[in-house]
C-alpha cells in the first residue's frame, strides 16, 4: 500500500492577531498535527501511564482543569494548571519564563517529578514499540520517533490552540453586535486609569507577558527561582484573561475560586507581599462596578474554541 503523503496546513489566525512565528523545522502539516494530538492525549507520557496532557488541560475549560492545583499520579503539582491558549505568541513559557519556546516546553512536564515523572529515554522506548507512532513519525518528520519528533509534534498541535472568537473580539475588533450596558461599563472600567487592568492584561492577548507580584504570600518564589534576585520574589508571568470565566480557580496557586473574589482582592489593593507591583492599588469600586467588570470579563469567553471537536481527544 502506498504511504499516505503529508500535507502542509495553515493555522487559522484572527485578522487582529499578530503574525505567528513558526520555526522553520516545524511547519504545520496534517501528519504533524495528528501526531501531536495523539501524543497530547497519550497516557504513555506519564510514568504510571495514568495521565496525559489533556488530563490537566481540558478543552472545555480552555485547557485548564478546574482544580486549585492538579493532582497527577498521587502528587500535587504546586501550581494551578495554566490555560494553553495562544501560546504561539508567548515570548517565553512557564510561570518564570524559563523556557523560550513551545518545542522546549514539551520537555518540562514529561520530566518534572510532580507531573509525568518520566525520562525521555523511557518514553521513546515505549513509543518505539508502537507501529502507528513509527509510521506517523516518518510521515510527519521523516525520522524515527525521538525527542526531536516528540517535542515538535506536541508544539505543532499546541500552536493550533488559537482563541480569538469571543464576544469581545466580535464587538471590539469585528464591529459585530454590541455589549450590554453592564459589559460596556465593565469594558470602560477595564481600560480605565482607575483600574489599570489593561496595563498588564493588554490587547490582543490580554497579557503583557511581564512579570509582576500581586502581593500574594504563599512562599512560591516565582521569578526569583530563575534570576536569584530578591526583588523578583513572588513575581509571575502575567496570564491571559481570555476565557477567564471558565479557567478558575485563579492565581498561580489557585487560591481564588471565583472572579468576584479576584476583583475583591484587586479592589483591596492586592496582598501584603513585599515586592508587589505599584500598579496594584486600592480601587474603591462600587458593587455595581464589580459586577460590571465581571460582566465584561465574561465576554472574553470563546465558546467556539472550547467546543472545537478537532481539539478534543479522538475516540
Amino acid at each position: 500500500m502506498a504511504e499516505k503523503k503529508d500535507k502542509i496546513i495553515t493555522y487559522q489566525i484572527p485578522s487582529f492577531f499578530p503574525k505567528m512565528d513558526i520555526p522553520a523545522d516545524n511547519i504545520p502539516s496534517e501528519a504533524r498535527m495528528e501526531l501531536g494530538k495523539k501524543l497530547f492525549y497519550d497516557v504513555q507520557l506519564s510514568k504510571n501511564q495514568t495521565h496525559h496532557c489533556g488530563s490537566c488541560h481540558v478543552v472545555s475549560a480552555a485547557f485548564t482543569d478546574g482544580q486549585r492545583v492538579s493532582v497527577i499520579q498521587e502528587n500535587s503539582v504546586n501550581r494551578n494548571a495554566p490555560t494553553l491558549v495562544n501560546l504561539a505568541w508567548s515570548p517565553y513559557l512557564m510561570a518564570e519564563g524559563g523556557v523560550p519556546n513551545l518545542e522546549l516546553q514539551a520537555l518540562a512536564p514529561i520530566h518534572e517529578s510532580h507531573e509525568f515523572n518520566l525520562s525521555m529515554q523511557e518514553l521513546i522506548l515505549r513509543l518505539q514499540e508502537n507501529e502507528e507512532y513509527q509510521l506517523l513519525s516518518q510521515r510527519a518528520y521523516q525520522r524515527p520517533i525521538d525527542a526531536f519528533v516528540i517535542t515538535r509534534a506536541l508544539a505543532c498541535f499546541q500552536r493550533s490552540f488559537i482563541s480569538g472568537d469571543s464576544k469581545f473580539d466580535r464587538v471590539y475588533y469585528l464591529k459585530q453586535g454590541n455589549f450590554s450596558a453592564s459589559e460596556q461599563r465593565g469594558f470602560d472600567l477595564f481600560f480605565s486609569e482607575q483600574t489599570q487592568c489593561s496595563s498588564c492584561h493588554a490587547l490582543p492577548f490580554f497579557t503583557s507577558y511581564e512579570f509582576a507580584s500581586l502581593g500574594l504570600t504563599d512562599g512560591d518564589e516565582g521569578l526569583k527561582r530563575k534570576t536569584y534576585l530578591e526583588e523578583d520574589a513572588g513575581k509571575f508571568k502575567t496570564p491571559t484573561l481570555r476565557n477567564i470565566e471558565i479557567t478558575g480557580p485563579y492565581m498561580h496557586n489557585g487560591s481564588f475560586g471565583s472572579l468576584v473574589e479576584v476583583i475583591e482582592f484587586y479592589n483591596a489593593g492586592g496582598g501584603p507581599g513585599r515586592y508587589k507591583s505599584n500598579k496594584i492599588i486600592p480601587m474603591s469600586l462600587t458593587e455595581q462596578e464589580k459586577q460590571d467588570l465581571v460582566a465584561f470579563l465574561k465576554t472574553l469567553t470563546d465558546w467556539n474554541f472550547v467546543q472545537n471537536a478537532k481539539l478534543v481527544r479522538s475516540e
Partner: protein
Amino acid sequence: MQVIQSTVYKFLVLVLIAIVFNSCRDQAQNATCGQVTIKFIPVWNGQVVTIDSIYTNSLNQRIRFENITTYFSSIYIGNGIDSILFSQVELLQLLGGQATVTKNMEPGTYSKLSFGLGIPPELNKNVDPSVYPNASPLSVQGSNGMFWYWNTGYIFFKLDGRADLTGTSNAPLLNTFAFHCGDDPLYRERAFSFATIHSEDLTSHEITVYVDMQLLMEGDNDPIDLSTDYFTHTTGNFALAERVTNHFANAFNVVP
C-alpha cells in the same frame, strides 16, 4: 529559535574543528597518531573514593558518595604555544573508575590542560537539547537528566550521597545530601600545567585529574555542614550552589 539554531551550529562547528585537529591519518595506512587519555579520579585523603566507602569530614560527619555526575567542556591540551581542542563536552560519572576520555592526538609535545566545569554560557542557555544527535552528551537522551527543563540549561554537576551526622561509628547513614548545580554564573574554567608528554607514533599517554573530594566538601577551611547545608538545586539556594561549585572547581589536581 534562530538563537538555538545558531548555538547548535556553533557547537557543530567546534566539533568539526575538533575532528579536523584531532584526526590523525588512518592508523592502518600511516601510523602517526599518539593516544592521550584523560582520567578523572575522585580521592579522599589520597585514597580513591568508592561508592562503598565512608569518609569522615572535619565536622565528624560520616559521608558516602553515591553520585558525582559532571559535565566537563572546552577541554584543551597544549604546550603553551599551541592549544588543541581535545573534547568539546564530556559527561562523566566520576565514581566507579570509568571517568576517562581518550582521543587520538597528532604527534606533539603537551604540558598544559584546561577545561571548564559545566557548560559554557554559549552552549547552555536557549539551547534545545532535542536537536543534538542522540549520542551527544548535550542531547535529551545523552544528557541523561542533566538538564533543567523548567528553566532551560544544563545541570553542571550532581553530587549526591548519604551522611550520618552523629559521628558514631557504624551508625546508619540516615541523612541525604544533594547538590545539583548549574547556571551560567556557575561555569568555572581551570588550567593546569603538567610534566611534558610527547605524543608520538602509537604511543599512549595518560593524564590523571584528581578530584579531592575532601577539598570539595570542605573548601579552604569552609566545611559544608551537612546538618544545615545538604540540599540545593541551584534555585532556592543559589548561595550554597555557588559555594559547592567553587569548592569543586578548586578541588582539581593534575598529574601526567
